[in-house]
């Protein structure tokens, strides 16, 4: 059993995005975080101070731990942003800006 079976989901057609250059399959309607979780990826950011990996923590847009770079746009909350076909998702380092 998985959540899709449990709720008898018939998702729209799956599509491909990339995470750090490698292809990842995503379902329409999912957030970037959900797509990465489904692909077995738990982390997509490293912290500014000690470079530690982080992913989802609160899951509802409050903690900002899940920041990620999507299509060159930095500091997007992966738990809120919907995933779109062809998205290029990249691990975000530090502040996501060059000044760091």
């Amino acid at each position, binding site marked *: *059993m*998985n*959540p*899709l*079976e*449990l*709720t*008898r*989901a*018939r*998702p*729209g057609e799956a599509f491909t995005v990339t995470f750090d250059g490698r292809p990842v399959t995503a*379902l*329409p*309607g*999912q*957030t970037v*975080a*959900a797509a990465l*979780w*489904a692909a077995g990826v*738990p*982390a997509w950011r490293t*912290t*500014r*101070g*000690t470079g*530690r*990996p*982080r*992913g*989802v*923590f*609160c*899951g*509802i*847009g*409050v*903690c*900002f*731990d899940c*920041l990620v770079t999507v299509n060159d*746009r930095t500091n*997007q909350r992966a*738990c*809120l*942003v*919907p995933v779109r076909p062809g998205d290029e998702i990249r691990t975000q380092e530090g502040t996501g800006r060059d000044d760091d």
Partner: protein
Amino acid sequence: MTERAHLAVVGAGPAGLAAALAAADRGVRVTLVDAAEQAGGQFYRQPARALGARRPEALHHQWRIWERLRDGVDRHITAGRITHLTDHHVWCVDRESAHDKPPSNRDQHSSQSFTVYALCGPAQEEGVAVRADAVLLAPGGYERVLPFPGWTLPGVVTAGGAQAMLKGGLVLPGRTVVVAGTGPLLLPVATGLAAAGARVAALVESADPRALLRRTHTLAAEPGKLAEGAWYAGQLLRRGVRTLARHIVVEAHGTDRLTAVTVAALGKDRRIRPGSARRIPCDTLAVGHGMLPHTDLAETLGCTLSGTDGTAVRVDDEQRTDVPGVWAAGETTGIGGAALALAEGHIAGRSIAARLYGTAPDPRSWAAAARTRTRLRAFFAALDAVYAPPAGWADRLTDDTVVCRCEEVTAGAVRTAAGSLGAGDLRTVKLLTRAGMGWCQGRMCAPAVAGLTGCPLTAGRRPFARPVPLGVLAGLPDD
């Protein structure tokens, strides 16, 4: 009055929906503003539409109530009485004071004018302003997680967060999950994860369920709630989830992601029993220590906060805050679950409708909801006492345990600030250490910093409820 009175509701969870429905039923024009893609809030969070779930109720409790609520609101949306702005993140609500406006024949609660500022669009960079005669704040709450060594490892998530990702995105955080912490929310989370196919290795609850027995009087007044708890317990038993009461997670292990947790038993003095530690392999830890109300918007409006530690919006019997024209309902006024949020929202909606039309509302018309509210508030006050975080949690933080996740401030730095540097309140600790200065503005670390330093947990006084792009601020009209 030619134009209909207009109410803005912030939050489309149980509280906001019940209020919107009650007000619209009485002729008020309502704009419902919510950050999510669909109505429902946390309790009734729906799978994204494109996932095509034909049995979303499999992940839900009390589906019937949701259907009634949703159908009622949908009817008003079709009739044009309710407008639902989805994907709109409110960052500020502004009030124009009554004397700035020409006198009106409506009472003081309707002579107000408010502007609700929201961000929308995929990058949340577009600004939107909604004008209204009254505002209901129903933004709910968020989970409190107290730190422990290893809690920043990927794979450690909040219990509610795991639930939200499951209900909304139909995904599991991992294969083998430990659900831990304290509070009634752990039960539905463990049940939901297990039903959706995760192996729940253990449910670790630090409280002592026997303490509930000492409060049987208050608890027995709420048989529905007790039955709900028993139902979850039965589900967990059926799925072979073992429950470890009076146990805590002492440490999360792993280098780049979680691989195991160490749990230990608590003795009578609520301290760790020597020799009781054991390791449970897992790739996910879903953890929570109760909830905290969202109060930013209320604070900026000048509403007084109250509650046990001054962290909830204070309301009167009609759910009015002490700022004219502003009502509040649901978890923002104190944590108490979906049924309480529904009752409060219903009362607020009726009160708002009456006040906007210049009549005094008749509390007898919502007597049933008021009784529910009284009972559930007492019930949750009793639960709060039982599900308090265990004594000594702060002592167990090693000096290098990160406390502020955003700014990576350690327990050692916070202790130094409160110790040799003499900081006596959260604000000073923040200035000395940067704890609470990062992206989340202390939402995550404030309870931990308070517990570590002995400073009272005060509300954050954040200027905005969401980070706002400078372009949006610059684009606002001057007044």
